Every structure is written in C-alpha cells, then in structure tokens.
C-alpha cells in the first residue's frame, strides 16, 4: 500500500473491534504474501514491538492475532520468523518465559510465549 498505510495497519491491531483486527491481519498477510520476506519480517518485528509496549494488547488479543496470522499464512513461516527475531533480540524488552504448545491444523507447534518485564 502507499506510504503511511503500514503504520495505520499496525495501529489497527489495537482496535477494540475483533472484526477490524481480523480483516487487518488478512490484509497484512495478503501484502506479506505478495511481498518480499523483509516486509513480513518487519511486520512481525513491529508486531512484537507492539506487544512489548502494550501488555494489555498482548494479553487480550495476543493469541487471537497469532491465530489469525496462522490461518492466513504458513504457520511454520510465522514460527520461523518469530524464532529468528527473538533469537537475535531484535525487539527490546522481550523475555521468553516458557514455551507453550499450540495445536494448529492438527500439528503441534511449540510457540514461544512472550512475556515482558516491567
């Protein structure tokens, strides 16, 4: 999308409406699919950044967002990117406490549950 769309789409993830969040994620996923990996990675970095600054969002919408992304995108790709980001600590303020099992489409994925200090 045009300049300025990306921040707006990120902001929508904090929307009070679940429907807005779902369609927003659909759009972000669609753009990611049609773009280079750098776009998706940047999106995920910003998403984690959003979680780090808005703990309430993480708690109330975190699983919804990740779930929706897994519906729209390849789960393995999401997990791989998340792992990459977290491994390189590209988002400040994160602290992985434990790994939680997540069953998606009959496959069990170990998805890091992100917990933040402070």
């Amino acid at each position, binding site marked *: *999308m*045009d*300049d*300025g*769309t*990306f*921040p*707006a789409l*990120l*902001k*929508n993830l904090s*929307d*009070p*409406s679940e*429907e*807005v969040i779902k*369609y*927003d994620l*659909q*759009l972000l996923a*669609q*753009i990611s699919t*049609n*773009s*280079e990996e*750098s*776009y998706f990675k*940047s*999106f995920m*970095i*910003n998403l984690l*950044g*959003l979680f*780090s*600054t808005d703990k309430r969002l993480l708690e109330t919408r975190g699983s919804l967002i990740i779930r929706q992304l897994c519906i729209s995108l390849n789960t393995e790709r999401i997990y791989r990117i998340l792992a990459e980001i977290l491994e390189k*600590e*590209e*988002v*400040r*303020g994160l602290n992985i406490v434990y790994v939680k099992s997540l069953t998606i489409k009959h496959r069990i994925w170990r998805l890091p549950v992100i917990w933040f200090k402070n």
Partner: protein
Amino acid sequence: MVPFTPRLIPAVLPNLAHHAPDIQSAAIKTNQLLFTTIQNLPPPSASQGQPAAVPGRSLSLITASPGRSGIPIPTNNATTNIGISNSPQSSSPTMPRLPAMADAADGTAAPYPNKLRSIVEQPSGLSSKSSVDKEGAATSYEQTSSRPSSPPLDSDRRATTLVTNEESEPFDYHATVSALTIRFLSEHEETRVAALKWLIMLHQKVPNKVDTSTVKDPSSRHV
C-alpha cells in the same frame, strides 16, 4: 464515476453506521455498487490500452463480468445484492449519480433524507434499475444523487464518465488508498471494517502497487 472514487469514499463509508436506516441503507448500497464497479475494472495495464473510441465497451465489460454481484460485505448483504453486474444497462446510468453524492453527503448526513426529494433528471434507463430489491431503497439511491448547488449534470456526467477511458488510468488508486486509510480513524466499526475490505480488494487487484516500505523496527528507535 470511477475517477471520483477517492471523493466518494469519505462521503459514503462514514454513513455505513448511520443511525437512520434510510441513510445507512443507501450508504451500504452505494458502497457495494462502487466496490463492485472498481473490483470489476480491468487491470491497470489493460485499461491503458483501451481506445477512447470505445468507452461504452469498457463499461459493458464491467457489467458483463459474471458472478461479480456477490460482494463480501456482510452488512445487509441479502437485501443489498443489487446484482448490478447482471443488468447490462444499469451501470452506465448509475455511474453518473455517484459523483453528485459526494457533495450531497459531505458532512451532511442529517439532511440526507431531504436530499432524497430533490431529484436530478433521470434518464429512462435508470428507472430500469429494478434489480434493486426494495423500491424505496432504490428510489432513495437514485434520488440521493442531487447536487443542490449545481444544475442537473446528468448528461455532462455521463459524458465525463464515458470519456474517462481517454485517461491512461481513470481510477486514482493512490488517492483512493489514502481516503480509505483515513477512514481507519472513524469511530464507527462498520466504517473501519469497510475500509479494510476495500483495501483487501484493491490490493488483490493491483498487488504490484503495494508499497513494501515498512516502519523501521521499534528496537532501532529505542534508546
């Protein structure tokens, strides 16, 4: 009509959540029609090659697209399935209506019902827009095209619409995207959702126009 989309978005989308049923219904119908029309436009590369001499054909192309009447807009979808793509002649006469709606609806959500009474001269073709289920809604849609400060511009509009194909790209993608993005600030959930659906459709249509520049990662901004 197509070139006016960026102006129509701010006029129509906010009214999708209007408390007055007539206005909301009209907005939903209009949004759906506009959505369908843009969705059925030929891809930009194809439209650039279209000769100006056959503008009518371009419009017919839109209406001839099969299976395009189902718009994934859930609100009142059952009652607002205009099925414009199934009415060969409904596209041309209805298109000129919408530009006028931009002015009619700009910040005037309340007077909307009054505008229903001031009618722009309608060509006979418009009355055949019987594909609309509710006659009342159809009437309101036809009548909301009034432009109070201007004389009836029917024939002018149609002429404008028909010659838009002379432009290399009559549909202003960027302006439309901007207009839609601003809709995210709306207090109405329906408006925000509609804007997102529009963007999804537009991106599906022209993915190559996606600006893949993203915000720098937040860690780079942290002290």
